Protein backbone atom coordinates (compact mmCIF):
# COMPACT_ATOMS: atom_id res chain seq x y z
CA UNK A 1 0.00 0.00 0.00
CA UNK A 2 1.30 3.43 -0.92
CA UNK A 3 0.06 6.67 0.54
CA UNK A 4 0.57 9.25 3.20
CA UNK A 5 -0.86 7.04 5.97
CA UNK A 6 1.43 4.11 5.47
CA UNK A 7 3.75 4.54 8.44
CA UNK A 8 3.98 3.25 12.04
CA UNK A 9 2.90 6.37 13.93
CA UNK A 10 -0.25 6.69 11.84
CA UNK A 11 -1.17 3.10 12.61
CA UNK A 12 -0.43 3.79 16.28
CA UNK A 13 -2.92 6.68 16.06
CA UNK A 14 -5.52 4.46 14.39
CA UNK A 15 -5.10 1.76 17.01
CA UNK A 16 -5.45 4.34 19.80
CA UNK A 17 -8.59 5.80 18.26
CA UNK A 18 -10.26 2.44 17.57
CA UNK A 19 -9.40 1.05 21.01
CA UNK A 20 -10.74 4.23 22.64
CA UNK A 21 -13.93 4.09 20.62
CA UNK A 22 -14.37 0.39 21.42
CA UNK A 23 -13.91 1.01 25.13
CA UNK A 24 -16.33 3.97 25.12
CA UNK A 25 -18.99 1.81 23.45
CA UNK A 26 -18.38 -1.09 25.83
CA UNK A 27 -18.40 1.04 28.98
CA UNK A 28 -22.20 1.61 29.31
CA UNK A 29 -22.81 -2.15 28.90
CA UNK A 30 -20.11 -2.90 31.47
CA UNK A 31 -21.64 -0.48 34.01
CA UNK A 32 -25.14 -1.78 33.40
CA UNK A 33 -24.02 -5.37 33.94
CA UNK A 34 -22.24 -4.49 37.19
CA UNK A 35 -25.29 -2.73 38.63
CA UNK A 36 -27.11 -6.03 38.09
CA UNK A 37 -24.83 -7.65 40.72
CA UNK A 38 -26.97 -6.22 43.48
CA UNK A 39 -30.42 -5.87 41.95
CA UNK A 40 -30.41 -9.21 40.14
CA UNK A 41 -27.60 -11.54 41.30
CA UNK A 42 -29.10 -14.57 39.51
CA UNK A 43 -29.15 -12.61 36.27
CA UNK A 44 -25.53 -11.65 36.80
CA UNK A 45 -24.43 -15.21 37.54
CA UNK A 46 -26.33 -16.35 34.49
CA UNK A 47 -24.35 -13.82 32.56
CA UNK A 48 -21.10 -14.95 34.22
CA UNK A 49 -21.80 -18.57 33.21
CA UNK A 50 -22.38 -17.35 29.67
CA UNK A 51 -18.79 -16.04 29.74
CA UNK A 52 -17.54 -19.67 29.79
CA UNK A 53 -18.29 -19.82 26.09
CA UNK A 54 -15.04 -19.78 24.08
CA UNK A 55 -16.28 -17.03 21.78
CA UNK A 56 -17.09 -14.84 24.75
CA UNK A 57 -13.68 -15.66 26.21
CA UNK A 58 -12.14 -14.40 23.01
CA UNK A 59 -14.24 -11.23 23.13
CA UNK A 60 -13.05 -10.69 26.72
CA UNK A 61 -9.48 -11.09 25.55
CA UNK A 62 -10.24 -8.45 22.95
CA UNK A 63 -11.56 -6.04 25.59
CA UNK A 64 -8.53 -6.49 27.82
CA UNK A 65 -6.36 -5.99 24.77
CA UNK A 66 -8.22 -2.76 23.95
CA UNK A 67 -7.74 -1.50 27.49
CA UNK A 68 -4.06 -2.47 27.61
CA UNK A 69 -3.26 -1.08 24.18
CA UNK A 70 -5.08 2.17 25.00
CA UNK A 71 -3.16 2.37 28.30
CA UNK A 72 0.27 1.84 26.74
CA UNK A 73 -0.55 3.97 23.70
CA UNK A 74 -1.72 6.73 26.06
CA UNK A 75 1.50 6.48 28.09
CA UNK A 76 3.43 6.81 24.84
CA UNK A 77 1.50 9.98 23.94
CA UNK A 78 1.94 11.47 27.41
CA UNK A 79 5.69 10.83 27.17
CA UNK A 80 5.80 12.37 23.69
CA UNK A 81 3.90 15.45 24.81
CA UNK A 82 5.18 16.08 28.31
CA UNK A 83 8.71 14.72 28.44
CA UNK A 84 11.00 16.78 26.23
CA UNK A 85 13.38 13.95 25.48
CA UNK A 86 13.99 13.03 21.85
CA UNK A 87 11.81 9.96 21.95
CA UNK A 88 12.24 6.92 19.75
CA UNK A 89 8.65 7.17 18.61
CA UNK A 90 8.45 4.04 16.49
CA UNK A 91 10.10 1.87 19.12
CA UNK A 92 7.70 3.16 21.76
CA UNK A 93 4.71 2.55 19.48
CA UNK A 94 5.83 -1.03 18.89
CA UNK A 95 6.50 -1.54 22.61
CA UNK A 96 2.94 -0.38 23.42
CA UNK A 97 1.46 -3.07 21.22
CA UNK A 98 3.83 -5.72 22.55
CA UNK A 99 2.93 -4.75 26.13
CA UNK A 100 -0.78 -4.92 25.35
CA UNK A 101 -0.41 -8.43 23.90
CA UNK A 102 1.55 -9.53 26.95
CA UNK A 103 -1.08 -8.25 29.39
CA UNK A 104 -4.12 -9.46 27.48
CA UNK A 105 -2.35 -12.77 26.80
CA UNK A 106 -1.84 -13.22 30.55
CA UNK A 107 -5.55 -12.55 31.04
CA UNK A 108 -6.49 -15.00 28.33
CA UNK A 109 -4.33 -17.78 29.72
CA UNK A 110 -5.96 -17.28 33.10
CA UNK A 111 -9.42 -17.26 31.57
CA UNK A 112 -9.17 -20.53 29.64
Amino acid at each position, binding site marked *: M*RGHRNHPLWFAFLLHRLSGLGLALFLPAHFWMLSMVLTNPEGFDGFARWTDHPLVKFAEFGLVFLLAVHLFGGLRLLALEFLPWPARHKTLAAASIAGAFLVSGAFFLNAV
Partner: protein
Amino acid sequence: MSEQQEYLDVSVWRGDASSGDYQSFRVPEYASQTILDVVSWIQQNADPTLTYRFACRVGMCGSCAMMVNGSPRWTCRTHVKKVAGKDRKLKIAPLRNLPVIKDLAADMAPFFDKWVKAGGRHAPSATRNDPIPQIKPESAGRDAANAGIECINCSVCYAACDTVTGNPDYLGPAALQRAWTIVNDEKHGNRDAVIEIVSAAGGCHNCHSMGSCTLHCPNDLDPMSAIAGLKRLTARNFFKRGA
Protein backbone atom coordinates in the same frame (compact mmCIF):
# COMPACT_ATOMS: atom_id res chain seq x y z
CA MET B 1 23.56 1.35 -30.61
CA SER B 2 20.48 3.01 -29.18
CA GLU B 3 18.85 1.99 -25.92
CA GLN B 4 15.18 1.16 -26.10
CA GLN B 5 13.02 4.05 -24.90
CA GLU B 6 10.98 3.21 -21.79
CA TYR B 7 7.67 4.89 -21.01
CA LEU B 8 5.93 5.92 -17.79
CA ASP B 9 2.24 5.30 -17.29
CA VAL B 10 1.05 8.58 -15.74
CA SER B 11 -2.44 9.35 -14.38
CA VAL B 12 -2.96 13.06 -13.89
CA TRP B 13 -5.90 14.70 -12.14
CA ARG B 14 -7.83 16.99 -14.48
CA GLY B 15 -10.66 19.15 -13.28
CA ASP B 16 -11.62 22.07 -11.06
CA ALA B 17 -13.25 22.69 -7.69
CA SER B 18 -16.54 21.11 -8.73
CA SER B 19 -15.58 17.96 -10.65
CA GLY B 20 -12.82 16.08 -12.40
CA ASP B 21 -11.18 12.76 -13.17
CA TYR B 22 -7.82 11.18 -13.88
CA GLN B 23 -6.41 11.35 -17.39
CA SER B 24 -3.73 8.95 -18.63
CA PHE B 25 -0.54 9.98 -20.41
CA ARG B 26 2.39 8.00 -21.77
CA VAL B 27 5.55 9.87 -20.91
CA PRO B 28 9.06 8.91 -22.06
CA GLU B 29 11.36 8.01 -19.19
CA TYR B 30 14.73 9.70 -18.84
CA ALA B 31 17.64 9.47 -16.44
CA SER B 32 17.40 11.72 -13.36
CA GLN B 33 13.83 12.67 -14.26
CA THR B 34 11.77 14.42 -11.57
CA ILE B 35 8.00 14.40 -11.13
CA LEU B 36 7.96 18.05 -12.13
CA ASP B 37 9.82 17.07 -15.34
CA VAL B 38 7.05 14.55 -16.05
CA VAL B 39 4.29 17.12 -15.51
CA SER B 40 6.15 19.69 -17.62
CA TRP B 41 6.65 17.14 -20.40
CA ILE B 42 2.90 16.51 -20.51
CA GLN B 43 2.14 20.24 -20.58
CA GLN B 44 4.72 20.92 -23.31
CA ASN B 45 4.19 17.84 -25.50
CA ALA B 46 0.79 16.30 -24.85
CA ASP B 47 -1.70 18.84 -23.51
CA PRO B 48 -0.83 22.55 -23.20
CA THR B 49 -3.98 23.17 -21.14
CA LEU B 50 -2.61 21.23 -18.15
CA THR B 51 -2.43 23.61 -15.18
CA TYR B 52 0.19 23.28 -12.45
CA ARG B 53 2.39 25.53 -10.35
CA PHE B 54 6.15 25.75 -9.99
CA ALA B 55 8.82 28.39 -9.78
CA CYS B 56 12.39 27.69 -8.66
CA ARG B 57 12.77 23.99 -9.58
CA VAL B 58 15.45 23.55 -6.88
CA GLY B 59 13.47 23.03 -3.67
CA MET B 60 13.58 26.62 -2.41
CA CYS B 61 10.21 28.19 -3.17
CA GLY B 62 7.67 25.60 -2.06
CA SER B 63 5.37 26.07 -5.07
CA CYS B 64 5.34 22.68 -6.76
CA ALA B 65 4.05 20.25 -4.12
CA MET B 66 1.52 17.66 -5.34
CA MET B 67 0.18 14.28 -4.33
CA VAL B 68 2.35 11.62 -5.96
CA ASN B 69 1.10 8.05 -5.65
CA GLY B 70 -0.94 9.08 -2.62
CA SER B 71 1.74 10.98 -0.73
CA PRO B 72 2.43 14.72 -0.75
CA ARG B 73 5.84 15.56 -2.21
CA TRP B 74 7.86 18.48 -3.57
CA THR B 75 7.81 17.43 -7.17
CA CYS B 76 10.92 19.31 -8.32
CA ARG B 77 13.13 17.32 -5.97
CA THR B 78 11.35 13.98 -6.21
CA HIS B 79 12.95 11.58 -8.65
CA VAL B 80 10.68 9.35 -10.68
CA LYS B 81 12.97 6.45 -9.88
CA LYS B 82 12.27 6.91 -6.17
CA VAL B 83 8.47 6.77 -6.37
CA ALA B 84 7.50 4.83 -9.51
CA GLY B 85 7.51 1.10 -8.91
CA LYS B 86 8.65 -1.54 -11.37
CA ASP B 87 5.32 -1.06 -13.16
CA ARG B 88 6.41 2.55 -13.97
CA LYS B 89 3.03 3.88 -12.83
CA LEU B 90 2.57 7.40 -11.48
CA LYS B 91 -0.58 8.97 -10.09
CA ILE B 92 -0.33 12.73 -9.73
CA ALA B 93 -3.00 14.86 -8.05
CA PRO B 94 -3.30 18.29 -6.44
CA LEU B 95 -2.44 18.59 -2.74
CA ARG B 96 -5.01 17.19 -0.28
CA ASN B 97 -6.86 19.31 2.28
CA LEU B 98 -6.93 22.35 -0.03
CA PRO B 99 -9.49 23.48 -2.60
CA VAL B 100 -8.56 22.72 -6.20
CA ILE B 101 -8.26 25.66 -8.59
CA LYS B 102 -7.64 23.62 -11.74
CA ASP B 103 -5.87 20.34 -12.48
CA LEU B 104 -2.75 20.14 -10.28
CA ALA B 105 -2.94 23.66 -8.88
CA ALA B 106 -4.39 23.72 -5.36
CA ASP B 107 -5.61 26.93 -3.75
CA MET B 108 -3.04 27.68 -1.04
CA ALA B 109 -5.09 30.52 0.50
CA PRO B 110 -6.40 28.56 3.54
CA PHE B 111 -2.86 27.37 4.25
CA PHE B 112 -1.41 30.89 4.19
CA ASP B 113 -4.38 32.37 6.07
CA LYS B 114 -3.67 29.97 8.93
CA TRP B 115 0.05 30.74 8.75
CA VAL B 116 -0.75 34.43 9.24
CA LYS B 117 -3.31 33.66 11.94
CA ALA B 118 -0.73 31.69 13.96
CA GLY B 119 1.61 34.69 13.97
CA GLY B 120 3.13 34.57 10.51
CA ARG B 121 3.78 38.32 10.54
CA HIS B 122 6.72 39.46 12.59
CA ALA B 123 5.81 41.80 15.43
CA PRO B 124 8.84 43.92 16.29
CA SER B 125 9.86 44.36 19.92
CA ALA B 126 12.11 47.36 19.29
CA THR B 127 12.53 50.26 16.88
CA ARG B 128 15.52 50.93 14.64
CA ASN B 129 16.76 53.45 17.21
CA ASP B 130 17.01 50.85 19.96
CA PRO B 131 20.15 48.77 20.42
CA ILE B 132 19.98 45.31 18.80
CA PRO B 133 19.22 42.74 21.50
CA GLN B 134 21.91 40.12 21.95
CA ILE B 135 20.66 36.57 21.38
CA LYS B 136 23.05 33.80 22.32
CA PRO B 137 23.17 31.35 19.39
CA GLU B 138 23.56 28.45 21.80
CA SER B 139 20.56 29.37 24.01
CA ALA B 140 17.79 26.78 24.29
CA GLY B 141 15.15 29.11 22.85
CA ARG B 142 17.29 29.91 19.81
CA ASP B 143 17.93 26.20 19.28
CA ALA B 144 14.18 25.49 19.32
CA ALA B 145 13.44 28.38 16.95
CA ASN B 146 16.26 27.39 14.57
CA ALA B 147 14.85 23.88 14.26
CA GLY B 148 11.74 25.22 12.51
CA ILE B 149 12.81 28.26 10.51
CA GLU B 150 13.78 26.45 7.29
CA CYS B 151 10.10 25.93 6.39
CA ILE B 152 9.47 26.76 2.71
CA ASN B 153 5.65 26.85 3.02
CA CYS B 154 5.17 24.04 0.52
CA SER B 155 2.10 22.73 2.41
CA VAL B 156 3.27 19.12 2.18
CA CYS B 157 2.75 18.64 5.94
CA TYR B 158 -0.68 20.29 5.72
CA ALA B 159 -1.69 17.88 2.96
CA ALA B 160 -0.33 14.89 4.90
CA CYS B 161 -2.21 15.71 8.11
CA ASP B 162 -5.46 13.82 8.75
CA THR B 163 -6.30 16.07 11.68
CA VAL B 164 -6.59 18.89 9.15
CA THR B 165 -8.82 16.63 7.04
CA GLY B 166 -11.21 16.04 9.95
CA ASN B 167 -11.14 19.55 11.37
CA PRO B 168 -11.04 22.45 8.89
CA ASP B 169 -10.45 24.95 11.73
CA TYR B 170 -7.22 23.23 12.78
CA LEU B 171 -4.24 25.48 12.10
CA GLY B 172 -2.13 22.59 10.87
CA PRO B 173 1.53 21.58 11.30
CA ALA B 174 3.26 24.36 9.34
CA ALA B 175 1.45 27.26 11.03
CA LEU B 176 1.88 25.70 14.47
CA GLN B 177 5.57 25.08 13.88
CA ARG B 178 5.84 28.74 12.86
CA ALA B 179 4.11 29.64 16.15
CA TRP B 180 6.66 27.51 18.03
CA THR B 181 9.57 29.36 16.42
CA ILE B 182 7.93 32.67 17.41
CA VAL B 183 7.34 31.82 21.05
CA ASN B 184 11.04 30.91 21.20
CA ASP B 185 12.11 34.13 19.46
CA GLU B 186 13.16 36.73 22.03
CA LYS B 187 12.93 39.46 19.42
CA HIS B 188 9.25 38.87 18.71
CA GLY B 189 7.07 41.53 20.29
CA ASN B 190 3.77 39.70 20.72
CA ARG B 191 4.51 36.17 21.88
CA ASP B 192 1.60 36.10 24.35
CA ALA B 193 -0.90 36.69 21.55
CA VAL B 194 0.55 33.74 19.64
CA ILE B 195 0.27 31.52 22.71
CA GLU B 196 -3.33 32.66 23.05
CA ILE B 197 -4.17 31.70 19.45
CA VAL B 198 -2.57 28.26 19.61
CA SER B 199 -4.48 27.57 22.85
CA ALA B 200 -7.89 28.34 21.37
CA ALA B 201 -10.17 25.97 19.42
CA GLY B 202 -8.32 24.93 16.25
CA GLY B 203 -4.98 25.27 18.02
CA CYS B 204 -2.15 22.89 18.88
CA HIS B 205 -4.26 20.79 21.28
CA ASN B 206 -6.12 19.15 18.41
CA CYS B 207 -2.95 17.40 17.18
CA HIS B 208 -3.08 13.58 17.46
CA SER B 209 0.67 13.09 16.92
CA MET B 210 0.14 10.95 13.83
CA GLY B 211 3.55 12.12 12.68
CA SER B 212 2.66 12.36 8.98
CA CYS B 213 3.93 15.98 8.95
CA THR B 214 7.37 15.06 10.24
CA LEU B 215 7.58 11.99 8.02
CA HIS B 216 6.77 13.87 4.81
CA CYS B 217 8.49 17.22 5.41
CA PRO B 218 10.88 17.56 2.46
CA ASN B 219 13.26 19.70 4.52
CA ASP B 220 13.43 17.15 7.35
CA LEU B 221 11.78 19.52 9.83
CA ASP B 222 9.83 18.11 12.77
CA PRO B 223 6.46 19.89 13.15
CA MET B 224 5.12 17.10 15.39
CA SER B 225 7.77 17.83 18.03
CA ALA B 226 7.26 21.58 17.62
CA ILE B 227 3.54 21.10 18.34
CA ALA B 228 4.41 18.92 21.35
CA GLY B 229 6.56 21.84 22.51
CA LEU B 230 3.56 24.16 22.22
CA LYS B 231 1.37 21.73 24.17
CA ARG B 232 3.96 21.59 26.95
CA LEU B 233 4.45 25.35 27.06
CA THR B 234 0.73 26.17 27.04
CA ALA B 235 0.03 23.59 29.77
CA ARG B 236 2.78 25.05 31.95
CA ASN B 237 1.50 28.60 31.37
CA PHE B 238 -2.06 27.54 32.16
CA PHE B 239 -1.11 26.31 35.62
CA LYS B 240 1.19 29.27 36.29
CA ARG B 241 -1.58 31.70 35.47
CA GLY B 242 -4.19 29.68 37.34
CA ALA B 243 -2.10 29.48 40.53
